């Protein structure tokens, strides 16, 4: 019987090793899989390449992973935000690399990686610093840059509900990068608020079909990043 559920957060990330590439879902705290990230902090593996839209807040979640010196390189669109302290400090000190990607190009690169598309063309960033060094090609009189599909060894994603097949439903704007990161990772690890029986998610409303999900961890009451930041919490 197929059953992708039942592992703990620690077990789910146990084979993420030094040098792995890891996509981490979330747009700010919405959809950020904080318990899975903390399990990765606990593992202490280093030299990670992390693909995530932001770089976290305060000293918890993704920011804690970065603060712990585990991330060698960030691929993201917006590494700066109100409570983003850790990344700027390490970046200015030359201790972390940054590949800055326009947000829509980042999303499409991830979707392409998951869909078996090695490269595509987009008008985004043509003529800008972020288009420099990229192949430019004209279609129907307009210039486009070539962008490459992006895959990763692992994805850490937060969804709302899952069944044992790994079918997922999300909540509101916490959906964001989750579905495409599940597609693009060789091993997609998902924390959900609730496990349901097969059929418990309407098959018309499944957002991520189970084929894209390898492991599901139930975290009934996930921590809320912004509250932890407000309280000044530091992980671990």
């Amino acid at each position, binding site marked *: 019987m197929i059953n992708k559920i039942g592992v703990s957060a620690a077990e789910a990330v146990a084979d993420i090793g030094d040098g792995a590439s890891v996509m981490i879902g979330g*747009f*700010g*705290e*919405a*959809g950020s899989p904080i318990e899975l990230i903390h399990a990765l902090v606990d593992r202490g593996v280093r030299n990670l390449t992390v693909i995530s*839209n932001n770089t976290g807040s305060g000293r918890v979640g993704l920011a804690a992973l970065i603060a712990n010196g585990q991330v060698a390189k960030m691929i993201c*669109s*917006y*590494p*700066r*935000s*109100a409570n983003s302290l850790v*990344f*700027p400090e390490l*970046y*200015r000190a030359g201790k972390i690399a*940054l590949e*800055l*990607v*326009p*947000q*829509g*190009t980042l*999303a*499409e690169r*991830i*979707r392409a990686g998951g869909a078996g598309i090695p490269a595509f063309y*987009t*008008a*985004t*960033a*043509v*003529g*800008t*610093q*972020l288009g420099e060094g990229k192949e430019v090609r004209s279609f129907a009189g307009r210039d486009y840059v070539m962008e490459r599909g992006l895959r990763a060894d692992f994805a850490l994603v937060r969804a709302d509900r899952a069944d044992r097949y790994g079918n997922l439903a*999300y*909540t*509101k*704007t*916490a*959906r*964001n*990068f*989750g*579905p*495409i990161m599940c597609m693009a990772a060789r091993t997609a690890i998902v924390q959900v608020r609730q496990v349901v029986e097969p059929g418990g998610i309407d098959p018309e409303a499944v*957002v991520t079909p189970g084929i894209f999900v390898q492991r599901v961890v139930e975290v009934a009451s996930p921590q*809320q990043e*912004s509250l932890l930041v407000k309280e000044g919490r530091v992980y671990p």
Partner: protein
Amino acid sequence: MTATTNGEWTRHDMARLAARDIHDGAYVNLGIGIPELVAQCVPAGQEVIFHTENGLLGVGPSPVPGSEDPELINAGKKPVTAISGAAYFHHADSFAMIRGGHLDVSVLGAMQVSATGDLANWSTGEPDAIPAVGGAMDLVAGVKRVVVLMEHTTKSGDPKIVARCSYPLTGIRVVDRIYTNLAVIDVTAEGLVARELAPGVTFENLQAKTGAPLIDGRDHRS
């Protein structure tokens, strides 16, 4: 249109002017900052659908304090609500709307706009700045009409409308119209055309505060 005591437009005036120019039924993405005010200024009897690139079409008003939902936010990561008839989707679908030319208007803030509509709004280019681009480059490349809402000059009085942008570009020849505290200016093939001036502003005064030649287009408003 109200104005400040010095005859310049307030930020709300600018937002109202921008909202006035958005057609009924339009799909609109609002950038962070002054552009966010546009949502409050849709003329009565019109319906505009607001898109936020983090996966929501049909952004509603700000939530009542205490009812914020950390999983329902806009691109500025502020809590929002969703209208009845909203739709959620993932990031690739959201940017398919942007890149595919499905959005009618993108309203953005800016650091500089050039005489030919180049936009700079993502980086000062300073060596120790943390570069962060978000969805700005996708929006200007994909949305049908790109308009800028910004103060006419920097805090130190330097023009933000310039012959050539000195800051790193967000996009080339992308801006269609600029709304400032002093004027409404179109970017046209002939050059920058001032369409409307705030009540206390003369054309000469406007030109003096602008880093590129302006055409007085007040007689032939588009």
